[in-house]
């Protein structure tokens, strides 16, 4: 198919001795380019596993994954690293900035890797932290750190932005502003953004909502008119 992202009958099984843990079972879905896709589910449902496989951080046991026509699930380690380097941007719940680098340097860390990077300083400004370029993460608040993380993820000019509970550690207001940033970025740049959350209220902001339950796809829904973040209350 011509879908941007495609999961075909993907399963992830952990085996320890005789015990089998099925994190994902027969997951199949697609995501189009430029979409904001929200993946919801309860804790332990398998959302993160899904994201990890898509992001090339983990391998699957069965099935295939495609990004823009390329079979991600067939990559070897080196190819996966290259894939992560050029095609994927990650945003974590706990930011994971390099503590020893300033905000700007953290972003530069990523832009260095890319063949077509964005300008680091400009990105920082775009996320509203131009004035904090020289601060270390320890000197930034949670929200500010997350924004730096987003800037970092964007600096590589990836095809895909993967966010794992990006507002999990943030307060309501800050969280909202971060989500707005993500939404705006997607709209402006046409970047495909996938956000994992357990907060069902957020499903309104996405173009596509995938509900995951006990390792399976429970539901896939498309939003005709996604709600701007500032209008969502929870």
């Amino acid at each position, binding site marked *: 198919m011509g879908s941007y992202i495609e999961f075909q009958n993907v399963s992830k099984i952990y085996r320890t001795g005789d015990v089998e843990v099925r994190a994902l079972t027969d997951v199949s879905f697609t995501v189009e380019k430029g979409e904001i896709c929200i993946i919801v589910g309860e804790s332990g449902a398998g959302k993160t596993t899904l994201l990890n496989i898509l992001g090339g951080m983990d391998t699957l046991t069965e099935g295939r994954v495609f990004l823009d026509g390329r079979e991600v699930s067939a990559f070897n380690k080196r190819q996966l690293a*290259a894939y992560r380097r*050029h095609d994927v941007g*990650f945003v974590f719940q706990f930011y994971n900035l390099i503590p020893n680098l300033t905000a700007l340097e953290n972003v530069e860390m990523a832009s260095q890797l890319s063949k077509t990077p964005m300008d680091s300083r400009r990105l920082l400004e775009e996320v509203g932290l131009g004035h904090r370029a020289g601060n270390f993460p320890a000197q930034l608040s949670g929200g500010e750190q997350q924004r730096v993380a987003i800037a970092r993820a964007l600096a590589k000019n990836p095809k895909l932005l993967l966010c794992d509970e990006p507002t999990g550690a943030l307060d309501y207001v800050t969280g909202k502003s971060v989500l707005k940033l993500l939404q705006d970025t997607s709209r402006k740049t046409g970047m495909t953004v996938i956000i994992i959350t357990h907060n069902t209220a957020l499903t309104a902001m996405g173009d596509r909502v995938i509900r995951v339950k006990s390792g399976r796809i429970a539901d896939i829904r498309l939003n005709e008119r996604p709600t701007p973040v500032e209008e969502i209350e929870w």
Partner: protein
Amino acid sequence: MGSAYVKNIVRTITRSFGRYMAIFAIIALGVGFFAGITQTKPAMIETADRYVKEYRLFDVRVLSTIGFTKEEAERAAELPGAAAAAGAVSRDFIFQDEQGHTGVLRAHSLIGINRPELVAGRLPRASNEILLDARAFPASAVGTVIRVAEENDGETKGWFAHDEYVVTGLARSVYYLNTERGTTTLGNGKLTGFAYLPEDGFVFDHYTELFFVMDHDFAAYSDEYDEAADAWRDEAEAFVGALVDERYERELAGARQRLDDARRELEEKTAEAEAELADAKKRLDQALADIEAGERQLADARKQLAAKEKELAGSERAIRRQLEQAAASGDPSLAAPLKALLAQVEAGKAELAAGRRELEARERQLADARRQWADGMADYEEGLRELEREREKAEAEIREAEEELASFEPPEVYVLLRNTNTGYVSFENDAGTVEGIGKVFPVFFFLIAALVCSTTMTRMVDEERTQIGTLRALGYGNAAIMGKYMIYAGSAAVLGCVAGYAIGIRLFPATIWQAYSILYGFAEIAVVGNNVLFALSLAVSLVCSVGTAWAACRHELGRMPAELIRPKAPPAGKRILLERIGFLWRRLKFLHKVSARNIFRFKKRLFMMILGIAGCTALVVTGFGLKDSITNIVDWQFDEIMHHDVSVTFTKPLTEETLDGVLADAADVARHAVLLETSAEALRADGSGGKNVYLIASDDPGALEPFVDLHRDGEAVPFPGPGETVISEKLAEVIGAQTGGTVTFRYGDEKTVTLKVSGIFENYVLHYAYMTADTFAQAFGEPYEPKTLYLMLEEGTDAYALAAGIADRGEVAAVTIVEDFRRSVENTMERMNDVVLLVIASAGALAFIVLFNLTNINITERAREIATLKVLGFYRHETRSYVLRENLVLSLMGIVVGLPFGVLLHRFVMDQINIDIVSFEVMILPQSYLYSVLTVLAFTLVVNLLMDGRIERISMTESLKAME
């Protein structure tokens, strides 16, 4: 605190077993090493002590110039303090085995002292049985026959009761602890080994020596033993000396008596003979007188007879005339009376004729008598002459005997202690080589152990901070919480200490014993414990473990519980000093900047890593330095400084003729030099006890020059002038003497002599001082009587054969072959080398563990960071460089710190190594520094290689999980 608490601790141990084992292992290693090295010498000494006690090594050995009789040997047991005494015979002989191989054996009589240790077969019982040296003969020799070779001279053969001896067994001997067998005057000069015979296997007049075992319980080599031995020596000298003197006096008196008797006899016999001869003469004289009287008588008688004959003839003529006349006259009456007268005349003629015949007979008688007399006289004169001759002969013999008697010197008795037994002495030296090292290295190990404990416990406390916070929140006191970690670390340390100690005091001595087994190996190494040592080790172990646990806890427990429960903020980023150096900072590549910051970010790691690497570097430098200081010594000393091949010592001052005699015999001598060699003690400036120095004096420095190359730092040191001396470098250093200054010697027991130091020369084995003959005579107040001869031999000459030839001469006291000495020094060096290598290898391994441990912990701490990089898309090599670049830089920093440390450590260790005969040149070659750096870098690279896998295995998914 209850069972839950205990369960917690036990579960913590089982869950983090690797960590528990790490503490256990590092403590065990540290203690094991410390205890092991420290106890090696005691263990070796103990082993030797047991062995010499079991096999009754002599305490005192006495020799005399006139041997010992059986009675004296029996009476010797009465020496106060002696537990046993025995007379012994020893004799070298050339042997031949069944395959025709020959060699020289030193045969000893079997006595209850210096007993051999049977290794194969049985002890000899019959007089034609023999026990051989297990080192020199294979097991297959048992049952074969050893011949006393034909080449032995008559005297040697005369010592042995049989031509052939049957080998009943092989043995080790406590009298020959190491492989040194000694030299001999027979054969090629080298002793193949020892042999034991029952006493009746020998034929002898006197014992060659007496051995004593004293009644004591002192440990071998102990100070008490040495003190006691000195006293024994004096007593033995007096006691045995008295016995021998007594015998000497007795025999001397006896001889004198016999001489007197002989003289008396001579006189008596002479007088007798003279009397007899005088009688004979008298008789002969008498006979002569008789003969002469007879001859005179005869002459008279002849005269008378002649006269009578004449008369008768006249008468006859007259009568015949008358008869003619009568006949003519024709008177017949006239004729008858005339015929009657004629008849008378005829009768008378007949009488006279008879008379004449008588006279002739008498004449013959007298002639016979004269001849007899003449014979008698001849005999008599012969008798006189013979008497004279015999008397002269007898007188000459008596004179000779008297001279000989007069020339007898009173016997000398020499008392020797164990310190003259090569094997025994070498053993102590060898046992001690490890001692010095034992002082330094263990400190390192404990430091490292403390380091590892500290990092491990800190990490553990870090990981469990949430738990600690929770416990605090629940209301548990500090003691309880700390208790867990202290018990955790403490229990691991105690177990480690016990295990390490138990293994260490067995393993290390055994290993080092193994290294020495080529030389010794005479028994199983003893295991010697040391309670003080154990207590000390335990104390240090506890400090390392419990102490660091306490320190790690204290820090955390100072915080509020809430703080603990929150995840720990990773160490904040900070600008480093380097950043301020603008132009340098700008030049650095981005990732290098990161590394630079990272290095200084983890202060503790920085400090420990540098310390660990520095320590490792220091150790490696020391190792190489030791090698540098040691290995070349022998070559320098024997190739560049001392050039003589053989040294001969004489019993009396060397005369021209003795010298000529020796040189005539020894055809392959290229050069020779005559000199005086004696010894003295060189004292320090404050007069305190100094070093033993060999004084060499020569009246012909020119002849001596080719034998001794006096130089220093490449420049020649000229031979000293009058009142001056040149001394060896190490000696000068030790006693604090300098060129231009003075040096003081203590000579004999009281004399002190001070000489000006005109030069100092390089020397590595023993200590020497050279001076001219005049200087010696003047300064030491003794005549210059050279008794030593140095020989330089032609290439390819067999020094042993030559030495054996020279040693046979009467005037020769000893012959030393330099090659032997060189080899034994080399042996000692090699042993040292082995031991040092062992220690360095262990040290390196231990330092390696530090590196590994620190890096491991560091990576674990930064797992999240590393995972993030992976997620960002860092390739494998990029991720690796990111982490391990820091390692490399830290290593380099550690090396820079460690190199000077290493120099100091090396110097310290050199000071500790105390080998009597060698002075080391404390030096480190330039290339050794390079090797050290490379070695440490190699360690780093290996660790990095191992860590690579670790980094690779950091799972992005696991590490980046939310804090659950």
